[in-house]
């Protein structure tokens, strides 16, 4: 029986939902790059003050700041989506006979992120 199979070429452009998904997935390039920046900084730190300071100075370059701004935004989007789908990995949670709504799990995720981020800011300061 002859059938026709369509290609998947450019599938991610076919639907806005897929575009947002792709953005979420491509946040990983930024996150990985950021981890490498940190790893690089750690290496400089191990090499001594001068090397470390050079690395630190490079962070203030416009290119680095633009990269970090983009990375922060995209990882923020990743965080949002992460909490948005978090309930899907969980069994039904119940309080008494009532199911905990998915929106509550999302809210709990966002709230913990906010609290931890503020703690982090406070820790650095």
């Amino acid at each position, binding site marked *: *029986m*002859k*059938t*026709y*199979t*369509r290609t*998947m070429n450019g*599938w*991610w452009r*076919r*639907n806005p*939902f*897929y575009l947002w*998904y792709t953005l979420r*997935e491509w946040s990983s390039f930024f996150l990985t790059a950021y981890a490498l920046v940190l790893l690089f900084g750690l290496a400089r730190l191990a090499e001594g003050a001068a090397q470390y300071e050079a690395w630190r100075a490079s962070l203030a370059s416009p290119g680095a700041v633009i990269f970090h701004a983009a990375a922060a935004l995209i990882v923020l989007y990743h965080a949002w989506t992460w909490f948005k*789908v978090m*309930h*899907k*990995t*969980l*069994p*039904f949670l*119940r309080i008494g*006979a009532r*199911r905990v709504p998915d929106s509550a799990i999302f809210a709990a995720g966002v709230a913990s992120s906010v609290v931890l981020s503020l703690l982090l800011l406070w820790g650095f300061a």
Partner: protein
Amino acid sequence: MNATNGKVIAIECLRYDPQTDDAPHYETYQVPFTDDMSVLQGLQYIKDHLDGSLTFRWSCRMAICGSCGGMVNGVPRLSCETFLRDFYPEGLRVEPLTHFPIQRDLAVDQTDFLVKLRSIKPYIIPEAPKPVTEGTFLQTPQQMDEYYQYSQCINCLLCYAACPQYGLDREFTGPGALALLHRYNADSRDAGKAERMELVNADEGVWGCTLVSYCSEVCPKSIDPARAVNQNKVESTKDYFLRFVAPRRNG
């Protein structure tokens, strides 16, 4: 057909005839319509009055039989509960469910899904045989709630058309079948989880999913198949590590 108040809408349909065509093409039909007409009724109008060779599946026309799924302007929808008025005056494009091979026009080959449905052992595997004379199992509404939403699947395959991972890799068992797998695992009457975990644990099982979750978005019965799949990633992970700690009796 009722009076149409003179409104006409353009429906562009994908056409493919395996007997004569090597690739699909599109054909546009001008269809008079009323505001209560569904896309399915638009297609029926074409078949009855304009071109009897347009091929599509349909049956219940009330969103329960799962026959009439298709892509409407690129989105997987049941054509019986999608209305022409929402596409007026621009018109709409109707295509067969994506990711499936096209048999003819809007009809796709569903065989792959049917094979996968079989592979998940979609039936109660009881702990021990229970004679009918013993009456029903007891199941509280809360126990029922554990699987009930996943039992609502009408096998319309919209979730498969929504899943790029299935499109990219046909080995993936896919959202619909996995949601049904979970439906049985989560049923208090069932004791077949260990058997079904073999599929869950395989590369073809839940691991093809990257939680795009568009399946849950398009599901006409709000089943949330992505949840069933991803809950089973956790189950499979537990199964993977716990077997070292507490091996199952039957290995």
